[in-house]
């Protein structure tokens, strides 16, 4: 159904992994679309991806290109794996739909001093402990009894709030984008509904593609041994990776502002969009600034959510191994988001421009020296965490030398190829569980059907995705992680 009436673009080959769709593809496009993917991945993308990227190419202030990353697939309004930068001094907009509903949804990677040999005998006990500690699944409820006032403080100060309350280590902030706080956040810009949804869900994993995984590094999977060593990675090391965001609060903020923007977009700002999900307002408008401040709260809620989950992970490891988390080396390597709009300075045709870079299902990938990179990584480039499906593995990369081609953006995951409704029909959750167990991956899931939707067959080939962005020089491979156990909502 999705491809009915959709035109197949004629791609201009820019390189082996870069393709361009000209402005003539769809009337009203202000800039071309650029896709960063191998030919195989390009051919597998559904036509809606290009149509959605072209719709974004029509929006005022868009600069250079509307981008699609190698993991691109169709979403609602904007494709997942979409990047668009808007010149805020030339009427450029801010759009909740192009940011994504799950504001600041992202990945956190935690190291351990444990090896594969240490963890094998404990893997089931540990995973079950994690499953008990970290609420997951439909309607999962926070284990914290926060007051609304507590939550409002959290929404203004992010991970810093969590550390102040004892949920983490001070050094975690140095290993988090923005040091764990969007300092422009203003809680007066979020609704009571957002607060109510947030209070009940903070510290929960969620469901869908959100997960918590125990992984290890096969010696041959270290691709950049100098950076790996510098960042504390070693062969056969066990690491923890998890993926979650701002939960119901972030979604409520996005929903609230889409409705606000729909009321003023055409009438007040004369902006027309092809999909209501692309509702937007000029960044330099009252409505635009209000959303930016509200989005800041969403960013903080997301950072705090991951910080609280890290605290529970440390508790679960400590209780299982009967040792302090410090002694087990549970040090956070990095926390990075892939649903956000960031104000950044970039050079465009030789001129420095202040751009609002929207990344929806796209990770910031900053080359060495960029001020967006926390100090401890600035000389190397930003760590980039790309989560694969629960069957196939995940990657750590570092910002590449060509990242400025995409306003310092790269892929964020495997990218789905099969719809959830179809996956549910073709995959049996219990059979998948047994198959994964046979392959050495233990899964603890709230739902068999939810598990069935997240099997490896529903996703693109993660190696192909990562090789594409590596070849394009957007991000360079550091190492690959192999899954050992997975907690799913």
């Amino acid at each position: 159904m999705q491809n009915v009436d959709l035109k197949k673009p004629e791609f201009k080959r820019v390189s082996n992994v870069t393709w361009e769709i000209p402005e003539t593809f769809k009337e009203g496009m202000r800039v071309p679309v650029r896709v960063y993917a191998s030919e195989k991945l390009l051919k597998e993308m559904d036509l809606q991806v290009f149509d959605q990227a072209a719709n974004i190419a029509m929006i005022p202030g868009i600069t250079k290109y509307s981008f699609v990353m190698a993991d691109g697939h169709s979403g609602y309004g904007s494709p997942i794996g979409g990047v668009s930068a808007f010149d805020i001094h030339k009427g450029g907009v801010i759009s909740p739909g192009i940011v994504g509903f799950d504001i600041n949804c992202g990945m956190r990677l935690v190291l351990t001093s444990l090896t594969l040999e240490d963890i094998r005998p404990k893997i089931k006990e540990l995973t079950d402990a994690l499953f008990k500690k970290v609420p997951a699944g439909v309607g999962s409820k926070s284990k914290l009894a926060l007051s609304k006032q507590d939550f409002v403080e959290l929404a203004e100060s992010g991970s810093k709030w969590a550390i102040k309350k004892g949920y983490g280590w001070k050094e975690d902030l140095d290993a988090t984008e923005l040091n764990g706080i969007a300092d422009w956040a203003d809680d007066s810009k979020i609704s009571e509904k957002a607060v109510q949804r947030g209070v009940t869900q903070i510290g929960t994993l969620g469901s869908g593609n959100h997960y918590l995984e125990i992984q290890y590094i096969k010696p041959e999977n270290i691709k950049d041994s100098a950076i790996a060593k510098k960042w504390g990675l070693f062969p056969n090391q066990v690491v923890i990776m998890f993926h979650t965001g701002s939960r119901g609060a972030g979604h409520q903020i996005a929903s609230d502002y889409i409705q606000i923007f729909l009321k003023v977009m055409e009438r007040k700002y004369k902006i027309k969009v092809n999909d209501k999900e692309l509702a937007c307002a000029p960044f330099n408008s009252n409505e635009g600034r209000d959303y930016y401040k509200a989005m800041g709260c969403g960013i903080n809620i997301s950072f705090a959510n991951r910080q609280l989950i890290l605290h529970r992970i440390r508790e679960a490891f400590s209780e299982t191994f009967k040792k302090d988390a410090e002694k087990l080396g549970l040090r956070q390597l990095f926390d990075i988001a892939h649903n956000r709009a960031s104000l950044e300075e970039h050079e465009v045709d030789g001129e420095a421009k202040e751009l609002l870079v929207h990344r929806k299902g796209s990770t910031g990938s900053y080359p060495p020296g960029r001020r967006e990179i926390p100090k401890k990584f600035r000389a190397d480039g930003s760590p980039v965490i790309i989560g694969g499906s629960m069957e196939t593995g995940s990657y750590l990369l570092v910002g590449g030398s060509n990242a400025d081609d995409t306003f310092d953006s790269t892929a964020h995951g495997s990218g789905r190829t099969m719809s959830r409704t179809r996956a549910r029909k073709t995959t049996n959750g219990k059979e998948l569980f047994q198959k994964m167990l046979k392959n050495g991956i233990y899964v603890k899931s709230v739902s068999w059907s939810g598990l069935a939707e997240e099997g490896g067959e529903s996703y693109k080939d993660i190696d192909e995705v990562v090789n594409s962005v590596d070849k394009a020089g957007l991000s360079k491979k550091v190492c690959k992680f192999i899954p050992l156990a997975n907690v799913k909502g």
Partner: protein
Amino acid sequence: MAYKFVEDTTVSDVAFEAEAPTVQELFASCGAALINTMIKNLADIKPRIKRVFSIETEDIEKLLFDFLEKLVFYKDTEQLVFNRFESDIRESSGNWNGIFSVYGDKLDPKRHEFLVDVKAVTMHMFEIEKTDKGWFARAVLDI
């Protein structure tokens, strides 16, 4: 309840379409589709908790959107899911008013088989219209 989940309308999320002879039945079908995205068997939900709410909007599209969002809100804030939906929907002077009574149950993993969480209702391809046979609606839910 006349609704179906539509394959491949969206790759990462869930889409449903509903049809009904009356607008009241359409809202009930859409409510059931949203809950059925999260809970496998609606019959497992006992209609023992009632919530009543009213919504006033400028058009029928926004009325349906707000109704579905309210169900997501109850799931997130009170862990409530519903399987009976009653409504009194009227149009007057260009405004749409709905008074809704919904009946359901606290989420319970022992009694309810969970599927996936609905995080939001989106405006993408969102549609409600009067047809020759009655009413039609489509929605894409963010997962």
